[in-house]
């Protein structure tokens, strides 16, 4: 990873990337869908040795962007340069530069864990002996050795995902493109994945491009994160930098027992600033105001009506909301996963 003095280079450079999916004419039972700009002029720069995240709700264009970076989807316009290679002109080079973990495991489902890793290594150009060694190493690293003989199909969702991660990590690529790698995994497996990724970065300067909509994960593992919404990058910085940009506001969540005591004037005043979801109020307030609000709701009549409250510093989700991204639940759109 670059320090102030060590020069790094862009592992991934994306300029003005555009992909529009054509409109779909209505058929019986399905309404017409207008043309969608899945990526709308995206510019990105990922440094070598960085763990860079793409964060955004479903349909934000993350997977489309990733498919363009991996040579799977041809952009309508724009440039994609990966490790010095122009992938718009030579999409076939992507396979020789990066390892991609997609969301689906259909290609590997009926193989055993060991054979999935070994076959993938062989198809990355390794000789049989080297592929077997690499397979054994990666399975041991991820704690999959006891499952090596089991078909992926018979494993739980998290274990299957872990086996797919093993297939992605085998064969030493300088860039890893991982589309929601830890979906469904237990904390133990998650930790194994991030330890394996970190080791590759420390030992070989591997760059990681990570798609996620898990905010907690984004905050803990990413060096930098780009927040995507409707095919555009609406912010890009370190998680800390993004959170600082939201300002010093803190989030106060109040859960009322039965109903909010809005007959109390101060509580009614809070209601005006709150996002109300059933019994739950979410407020974003300056620390001073938050403190006053906590005092208010933890005394007297208001406290009697209060079930629970929580005071938190901004998360990336707050950043996302503050930047104008679609809030959780708005328009029926899914927000970012919080836990």
């Amino acid at each position, binding site marked *: *990873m670059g320090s102030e003095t060590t020069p790094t280079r862009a592992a991934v450079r994306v300029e003005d990337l555009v992909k529009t999916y054509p409109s779909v004419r209505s058929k019986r039972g399905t309404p017409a869908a207008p043309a969608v700009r899945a990526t709308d002029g995206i510019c990105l720069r990922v440094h070598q040795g960085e763990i860079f995240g793409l964060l955004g709700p479903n349909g934000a264009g993350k997977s489309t962007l990733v498919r363009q970076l991996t040579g799977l989807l041809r952009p309508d316009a724009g440039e994609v340069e990966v490790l010095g290679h122009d992938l718009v002109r030579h*999409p076939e080079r992507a396979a020789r530069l990066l390892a991609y973990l997609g969301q689906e495991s*259909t290609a590997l489902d009926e193989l055993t864990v060991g054979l999935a890793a070994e076959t993938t290594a062989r*198809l990355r150009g390794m000789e049989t002996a080297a592929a077997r060694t690499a397979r054994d190493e990666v399975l041991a690293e991820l704690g999959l050795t006891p499952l090596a003989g089991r078909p992926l199909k018979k494993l739980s969702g998290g274990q299957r995902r872990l086996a797919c991660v093993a297939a992605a990590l085998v064969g030493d690529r300088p860039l890893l493109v991982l589309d929601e790698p830890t979906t469904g995994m237990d904390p133990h497996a998650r930790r194994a994945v991030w330890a394996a990724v970190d080791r590759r970065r420390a030992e070989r300067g591997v760059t990681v491009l990570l798609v996620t909509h898990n905010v907690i994960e984004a905050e803990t593992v990413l060096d930098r994160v780009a927040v995507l919404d409707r095919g555009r990058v*609406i912010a890009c910085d370190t998680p800390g930098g993004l959170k*600082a*940009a939201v*300002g010093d506001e803190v989030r106060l969540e109040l859960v009322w027992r039965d109903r909010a005591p809005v007959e109390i004037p101060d509580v009614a005043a809070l209601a005006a600033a709150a996002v109300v979801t059933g019994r739950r109020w979410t407020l974003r307030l300056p620390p001073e105001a938050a403190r006053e609000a906590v005092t208010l709701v933890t005394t007297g009549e208001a406290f009697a009506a209060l079930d629970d409250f929580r005071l938190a*510093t901004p998360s990336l989700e707050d950043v996302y909301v503050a930047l104008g991204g679609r809030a959780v639940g708005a328009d029926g759109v899914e927000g970012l996963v919080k836990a």
Partner: protein
Amino acid sequence: MTTAGSRSRTGDEAARPDTPRPDPEADPSTEDTAPLQEPAVPTCEHTPPREHTRPREGAAPHEGAGPGVAEVPEAIGAEVHDGGEAVPLAPRARLWPALGAVYRAQLSRARVARIPLLFVATFQSLGIMVLMRGVVDDGAEARAVVAGSSVLVVAFVALNLLAQYFGQLRAGGGLDHYATLPVPAASVVLGAAAAYASFTVPGVVVTAVAGSVLFQLPLGGLWVLAAVVPLAGAALAGLGAALGLLAPRPELATLGGQLGMSAALLLGVLPAGGLPLVVQWARDLLPSTYGVEAFARTFEPHPDWARVVTDLGVCAAVGVLSLAVATRAYRWAATR
């Protein structure tokens, strides 16, 4: 590359897993925090208006950044060399080793998922022969029934099941896995086709032996199956793979595979003599027909080997053609 002025306040921290969460209240730098609705990084490389980032005409691809990009804040605080050497490409997987790896992986799938279907394929052919036992006389018709039933096993697995497999692989996003590996398209298609053709061997042998016994045909010519299975298998598997890869929906791939198998059943098993002319033409178009005919001829007391070789040659030619089409179809389906 300009970094001054636009670096974020906490950019140096790079927020590692072990980096403590910045406390907004304790952090003195938050005094100059941007207003809430401002983007976190006003001059982020991703948000400049499009005209700023339009690649400069005629500029070398590795030349320094354009006007919009010059403002890129380096949040990590490092100097970026865009014009560095390109990282050397990893080697491609070579055709035959990769084909072997795909073949082996596909064959292992059989243990998990395909054995019940193999039984179905074999019993279907055995049932047809038992049915036809009372209908056809000995001689040419019996030879056609046994040969047709044996090749039907190949059609069931190589055409029908392979069409389903590739149809589902394409629909489920599984092709992405292969498409992001440096493996020749031919390795994937030929490896899968070869594996599916191999699945058929036990069923074909069982069917051919049982049929020969049932219809009192000589067993001496069964060695020709060593040529019939791979060649008819190549032709039908190529067809099945192409169907699966080109069908817009997996259900259509399944339908196409089923229809192809039905055609192989009707046109291959029924003796050709009594069929209407149009159906005979359709029969001539089906690659499995040539496998059936080659195999049927070897039951004759004095087989016409030249015609056996010709029939097998047609099978081989169709096989090469259909596998080439399937390879093209794979490339097309994998990178869309």
